[in-house]
């Protein structure tokens, strides 16, 4: 991982583990659902109706939940040559401005996301997805949200919830980053090229070395 992210201890490690597992599980589910649909079509001559829509929503969950993790681990790509050429004092100011820009982005996106999502939760709670069946437990909410009418398909406010959730988490992470830049604990907002290289090498070789350590 990038040298600049703080080593996780205790609770930090638990949160890391949850986020990393979520990323892996969502991607795994997307792949299996799409694969299962191909198998269903050719082997069982049928079609999993909800497969495509579910995969598309999982895709949104993967990325929108994952961005805040990547901010925490300092993984996002950017141009570092100019910032690195600055003297340290100036660099700190420039990075602080950059951090504030990121914070501005995430706050604006957060506001927009809640504005976009709340109607789906409130007056438009009847608005359903096209193909995904609604789970039974959800019907318990129907008297309060859907004027007592059962949902025949999963209501949209559920898959769309990742938008406000993800952007709120992103704001939280950028708030942390801004503080760390202020305290002088972090020098760059983006993955430096050295980090990218070691990252690429890790992705290539790590599966082997890790099993070696265990074995």
């Amino acid at each position, binding site marked *: 991982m990038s040298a600049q992210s703080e080593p996780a201890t205790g609770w930090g490690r638990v949160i890391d583990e949850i986020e990393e597992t979520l990323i892996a599980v969502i991607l795994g589910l997307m792949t299996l659902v799409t694969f299962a649909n191909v198998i269903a079509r050719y082997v069982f001559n049928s079609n999993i109706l909800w497969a495509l829509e579910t995969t598309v929503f999982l*895709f949104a969950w993967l990325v929108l939940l994952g961005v805040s993790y*990547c901010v925490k681990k300092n993984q996002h790509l950017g141009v570092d040559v100019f910032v690195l050429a600055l003297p340290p004092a100036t660099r700190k100011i420039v990075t602080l401005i950059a951090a504030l820009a990121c914070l501005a982005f995430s706050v604006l996106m957060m506001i927009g996301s809640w504005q976009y999502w709340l109607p789906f939760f409130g007056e438009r709670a009847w608005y359903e997805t096209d193909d995904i069946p609604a789970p039974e437990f959800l019907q318990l909410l129907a008297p309060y949200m859907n004027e007592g009418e059962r949902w025949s398909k999963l209501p949209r406010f559920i898959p769309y919830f990742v938008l406000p959730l993800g952007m709120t988490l992103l704001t939280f992470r950028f708030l942390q980053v801004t503080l760390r830049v202020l305290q002088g604990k972090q020098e760059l907002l983006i993955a430096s090229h050295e980090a990218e290289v070691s990252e690429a090498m890790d992705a290539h070789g790590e599966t082997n070395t890790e099993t070696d350590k265990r074995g």
Partner: protein
Amino acid sequence: MEVLVLFGLVIGLLLLGVPIAIGLGLSSILFLFMYSHASLAGVAQTMFDAFAGHYTLLAIPFFVLASTFMSTGGVARRVINFAIDSVAHFPGGLAIAGVFACMLFAALSGSSPATVVAIGSIVIAGMRQVGYTKEFAAGVICNAGTLGILIPPSIVMVVYAAAVDVSVGRMFLAGVIPGLVAGLMLMIAIYIAAKIYNLPSQPRASWRKWAGSAADAGWGLFLIIIILGGIYGGIFTPTEAAAVAAVYAFFIANFVYRDMGPLKGDGETGPISVLKKPQALITAWVHPDTKHALFEAGKLTIMLLFIIANALILKHVLTEERIPQAITEAMLAAGLGPITFLIVVNLLLLIGGQFMEPSGLIVIVAPLVFPIAIELGIDPIHLGIIMVVNMEIGMITPPVGLNLFVTAGVAGMSVMSVVRAAMPWVAIMFAFLVLVTYVPFISTWLPTTLMGPEIITK
């Protein structure tokens, strides 16, 4: 005028060290505040639609995952052995084999840096052992690695197809011949250099040995048949092909090559037979190696797609403000012909490629130049290949060429010396760019022959 403000904002933010995705998104939001009445909720919706409305982009996580499973050390080693047994007896043989191995690996992976790491970390050391200079080895691999995005499957092509609504299948087919031509040009240059500098060649491998290494590499290389055959045979959509490829790569890595997962033996015993450990059929799915591959692929997907989603917001702003149309009219009014237009596109992408991640740049530039290209009668598929080749060159030219940094890491050289080492080979890629730009036939012949003429909607 407005468009200058917008791009000024983007470049300014990037130079401050803002992540590319945020730079694109924030510029778009600020631009909307200044010049239009769009709401923040609308921007949020565009962000969500990047995923929910672009089924094509869904192929990216699956291709990344397939490539992650294929990037375990064993696949690269088998591909390299096969390449060496095939071509290493020519003068400059090991270097030619390195290029060949990069071409083969490019057919398994959609990314250039991944190709350089997988092939370079083995081949560069091997070349030095038989007497090549470090510079020669690094220069060759750094350039050949860029074929990763030209030879299908290619993430950059998926992005182009999604950005301008052309068929991914056509783009993939269109990349085949240019990929082969670029590889051959590099090989011929090595052959000539080998004759002049008297570079070493390896003994010719016996047919038996060749057949053995071909069979060994075949399991991995079958992936390209699944992808291309599946798409053109009408069996899968490109997205499904990518998902099938990912599952296939998982099986090959876990149960055939056994470089990862429960059947990977410890150093002495070698891989374990699945008959001795049948529970592996279940445990492989939840093995830590599998989780690690899924996580690494997921992380790369998140970074790429967040850039693409924000680039799509910017694209949305551009189309709302009718900026592509304004540029098209201005360009056509200035009497721009196809040849000058293509030079402008080349320059724009070469400069842009110095600062931007290829996928993001394509999402932004493609909709700007696409309408002009259609007016001028340039084939959309041809335009796509030109863009991809430009991105390749962007990856091997300073200051921000990603392949340069990756090669420097793999070869243990400074970035500046890799830049110098890569220079003569970059000249070949430039010659190739000119060839691809002005001979559309190279790109369009294969897709038109196999899939029929293209219907272009203006």
